[in-house]
Every structure is written in C-alpha cells, then in structure tokens.
C-alpha cells in the first residue's frame, strides 16, 4: 500500500498543480465579482503560447526556453483575459456568455494558428521539465519520499504563488479592495476604490494564472499542444466552488481532483482497483463535486456581488 501511494503521488501532484494555479486565478476574478467560465480557454491560450515559444526557442537556448515559455504563457493569458474583462466590466455583458465566447475563441483561434504553423495543428516540444529531488529535504522520513522527491520546479513555483496570493488577498490593501468589490461594489466605490480598475486587474491575474497553468501542463506531463485543455479549466472552476472561494479550500479540492483522477488513470495496473469498473472511478470526482455543491448550498461562501455588472446608478 505504501509503495503504491509513493508511486501514485508524483503523478497526482503533477496533475494537481495546473488545476491549482488555474483555480487560484479564478479565485481572483470571482472574489472581485466577475464569473470566469473562460478559464478553460485561457488555459488553452497558455498551452498554445507556451508550446509555441518553447518549440521555437529550445534549440537555441535549451533549459531557459521552458522558463521563457512559461513567462510568455503568463503574459498571453493576462492579455487574452482582457477580452473577458472588456466585455464584462466595460460593456456589462453577461459574464457566463462572455466566458463561453472566450473559450470558443481561444480553442478555435489557437487551433487555426497552429494549423497554419505546423500543418497538423499540434505543437510538440522536445524537452519538458525534468523531475528533481529537493536537496536535504528529500532525506526526511515519510514526507521526504512523498513530497520532496521527483518534483517539478513548476510545482514549487505554483505553491509559492499560492502563498503569495493568499497573502495578497488577505493581508494587503489591494486584496481587501479586491474582495470588497466582490462583496459590495457600491460600498467600495463610495470608499474611493476604482471598482472597474480593480476588476480589470483581477480578471487579468486570473488569465495570467490560467495561462501559466496551461503551459505547466505542456512542460510537465503533456509535452504537446493539441487544441484542447480536456476540461481542466472547467474542473478548476468546479474546484473553486468546491473549495468555497478560499485558497486553502482550493488547495484541498484540486488535490482531491488530482488524486482521484490519477487513481482512475492507473487503476488498471493496481489489482485492488482493477476490479472496480473504470466508469465509477472516472465519474467519481464529478459526482463528489455535485454532492459537495448540494451540501455547501445552505452556507455558500460565494462573493455577494458575483456575476452582477457594476452599475454606479443602481441602488
């Protein structure tokens, strides 16, 4: 059993991390009051930009290319998210429809561009990140073997961003303002906060994080852009709600999804699990999410003004 867990764990973590950072991005957007269904599309933008940048640069500058690719995906995600921000904040458009439009534009546009560039529509990178042991800490008993061996550098980057984001949201002036815009934008406005600006920034952060999440998929376990994020963005959105719009909740929810999905993926190789039909294992995370949504519906922690356009004249 122990050896089984140690075998599964690195895969579960690798699957969790892109979900975690994307979901964290969604947290910024939704805490500021903007629903972001477009996370899926923003991940695709990150995957495309990351894969394209790395595939172009990796001959000339091996090693560094990956980090340039991640940075490019981060920036591209933020820029593309402005489409959503413009529609939702400046034009008061319906946020769900705008998010769906963002998803559709991202998927179609990147596939179109990739077809023009490579012909097949897929973009391959030759070298992804290499798994490394963390020095010293990997020698620790139990957690050293589980957490600090065979890790990707992006895992630590993302975990650092989680800590940084939590600090930003709860301990800084910007974080307080951002949350105020999601709870009661009129009160925030009367206190001198520029609601539109804060929401723009929040949506752009969500795009940047989702873009980074998409590129993380490319440099860790996928290695190829193929025009889809396979529902990861939607899963990140579900994790955001499952985690009740809180950083720690998101961490738990995404790890649950990561672990459950990994177990389902490797179940055929594990005698104890091979007996269970794959259909139960594969649908398990989604069914649990539905149940969790029901259980949390009474005491939902959703931001009060989530999904409502900010209209200065409204009381």
């Amino acid at each position, binding site marked *: 059993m122990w050896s089984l867990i140690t075998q599964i764990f690195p895969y579960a973590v690798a699957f969790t991390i892109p979900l975690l950072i994307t979901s964290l991005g969604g947290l910024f957007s939704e805490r500021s009051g903007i*629903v972001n*269904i477009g996370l899926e599309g923003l991940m695709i933008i990150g995957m495309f930009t990351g894969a394209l940048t790395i595939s172009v640069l990796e001959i000339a500058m091996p090693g560094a290319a990956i980090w340039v690719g991640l940075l490019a995906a981060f920036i591209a995600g933020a820029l593309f998210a402005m*489409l959503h921000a*413009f*529609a939702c904040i400046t*034009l*008061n*458009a*319906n946020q*769900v*429809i*705008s998010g*769906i*439009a*963002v*998803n*559709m*534009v991202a*998927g*179609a*546009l990147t*596939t*179109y561009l990739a*077809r*023009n560039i490579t012909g097949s*529509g897929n973009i391959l990178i030759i070298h992804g990140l290499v798994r490394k042991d963390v020095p010293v800490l990997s020698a620790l008993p139990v957690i050293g073997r589980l957490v600090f061996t065979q890790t990707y550098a992006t895992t630590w980057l993302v975990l650092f961003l989680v800590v940084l984001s939590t600090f930003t949201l709860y301990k800084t002036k910007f974080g307080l303002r951002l949350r105020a815009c999601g709870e009661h934008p009129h009160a925030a406005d009367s206190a001198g906060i520029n609601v539109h600006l804060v929401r723009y920034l929040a949506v752009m952060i969500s795009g940047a994080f989702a873009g980074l999440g998409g590129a993380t998929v490319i440099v860790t376990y996928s290695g190829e852009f193929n025009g889809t994020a396979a*529902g990861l963005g*939607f899963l990140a*959105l*579900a994790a955001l*709600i499952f985690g009740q719009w809180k950083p720690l909740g998101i961490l738990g929810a995404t790890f649950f999804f990561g672990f459950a999905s990994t177990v389902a993926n490797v179940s055929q190789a594990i005698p104890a699990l091979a007996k269970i*039909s*794959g*259909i139960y294992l*594969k*649908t398990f995370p*989604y*069914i649990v*999410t*539905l149940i969790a*949504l*029901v259980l949390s*519906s009474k005491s*939902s922690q*959703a*931001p*009060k*003004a*989530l*999904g*409502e*356009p900010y*209209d200065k*004249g409204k009381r």
Partner: protein
Amino acid sequence: MTTRAGREYILSLVAIVLGLVAGAVLMLLSGNNPLLGYLYLFRGGLMNIERLGNTLATATPLIFTGLSVAFAFRTGLFNIGAAGQMLIGGLCATAVGLTFPWSRPVLLAAMLTAALAGGGLWAALPGWLKARFNVHEVVSTIMMNWIAFWTVFYMVPRYFKGPFLETESQKLPDTASLKTQWLSALFNGSYINLGIVLAIVFVALTAFILDQTTFGYELKAVGFNRHAAGVAGINVNRNLILSMTIAGALAGLGGATFYAGYASNMQIGVLPSQGFDGIAVSLLGANSPLGVLGAAIFFGLLHTGKGFMNAMTRIPPEIADTIIATIIYFAATSIMVERVLDRLKRRRAGQLPVAAGRDTIAAPKKGGAR
C-alpha cells in the same frame, strides 16, 4: 429598429458581419485571399443539391441543441450541458436500435422516445438540484457533461462494441437509421435524414409552447423575475425542473439525429461540439425558435463548406470555428454595437450624443450568484 425583436435580429446580423470580417483578417494574415476563401466556403455548402442537403444535415443537431439552450434560457437557466444530454440521448437511441429487431417505424419511434427520455432525465437532475438546493446549473451541467462522457466511454465498448474498433459502437442497421431512401434520393445522396423534418416540427412546437400556452407564459415569467413569478402564484420550482427537463429532451433528440442520422454509430471519447455550438446558435438566434433555425442553418453552412474551402485553398478548416466563436463574442458584446447604432441614429436626428448605458443582453436578468 422599431421592435425589441427586430433590434435583436439587427444586432445578430452585425455580429455575423463582424465575425466574417475577423475571419477575413485571419485569412489575410495567413497569406490567403479572403474573397476566394469565402467564395469556396459558401460554394462548399450551397453549390449543388447534395451539398445543400449536407448543410441541412449538419444543421439538424444544431437546431436541437440551439432550441435546448434557448428553451432553458427563457426560464433564466443556462444549459451548458447540451453536449452531455446529446451523448445520453444518442446512447439511449443506439441501445434501442441495436437491441430490438422491430419493424422500422416502431423502432424509430422507440429510439426517438428513448433519446427524448434519456436526455430529459439527464437534465432533470441539474434542474432539480437548482430548484431544491439552489445549486448553480452552469456548474452542475458541466459536471453532468463529463459524467455522460465517461458513461459513454465505458458503456459503448462493453455492450455495443463494433467489430473492428474498440472506440466505436456497432453500425446501426438500416431499419434503425433516420436516413431515408426518398430523402437521400431527393438530395442526390447527401447525409440529410428525417432528423431535419423532426427538427422543423420541434421548432414549431417550442415556438407554440413558449408563445401560445399558459405553461410557456409561466416559464418566461420565471425567467424575467423569479420572485415576482412566485408571488403571482406560479410554482417556480416546478417550472425550473420542467424547463431543464424539456431542454434536455430537445438536446437528447439532437443526439439521436446525430448518432442515428448524420452518423450511424457512436464514437467514444468525444464530447460533441454541437453542445457548445448550441449556445452560440441560441444566442445568435435571439433565443427564439425561428432565430435558432436560421442561425443553425448558417452554422451548418459554415461547417459544411469548410472542407471544400480547405481543398481548394490553403486555409485550414478551423477558420469556420474561429468565425463562429468571434460571432459569439460580438453577439455577447452587442451593447458596443448598440451604442454605435444609437449614436448614429441621434446624429441623423440632429441631437447631441448622449451616453447610453442600457443593459443589452437578450437573456432574462439573473439575480444573485451561484
């Protein structure tokens, strides 16, 4: 621009033009001639009776998913789950078609009923969760999409495995296909099938329910203002569940027309794109059944013509999806267009431009959040 509906159709047309312009820019950027591209795109969908039939056949499932989304929308619900409902509808129809050796009319009726019931039940759950626990339907229908995806993924190989591939079901017998001799002959052997007839019947039926019945009135009342409808004595929860169920049934029928009409077997591991395209169709068609019919045929045309365009030029077929997606973005941001139109109108009337700040989305306003 006299009526609200007329205004919405104008905004849809502007969105289409802007989407086509964006497509032209993309063609130019990739070094192709947009005029030639569009010429082949439209010829590919219209140039002879067979291709016209294919356009209608491609439009058929889109009409159903579009109706599905529009129907739920009128009650203030977002049905993002049309793809999953299509899959379940298709699975039910395929299961009946492959299992029972009945005569053709009986078998087809049973298959369609099964698809209708399957899709309906699949959507009834999110509807019930919304009514009973206030679980947001956007999230629950997305979850249901993936549950449907994996259900088909495991059920098809286990019970209906095809003779050659693990990833597809057996081919449906001719008696279980919506493809019909006279219709195929009429359109020179295209993919067109009885689904299009069914689709047109359901366009009329949904228009009738929404505009002519008390039930439709109650649904729309719930969509406009849930609380006011409740105060007026309308059973809000019952209407929410029924609206989702009917929406799911429509998408389920769309699945039957796709998997037992356009195609003749089910592929696993694919979430049908018609589900999300249905949202686009509904939005472009201003959530009215007739608008949905028009928008679906237009998208069917783009999808049918893209292969021909790709064969005649070097433009990748994905341009069609890009154009559709751009149209949807412009439809979603139609307030921008509306502001410009307002300004033009005022200038013509000799007035000074005044900042317009109205809400434009055609959908009923949704109160609160998930």
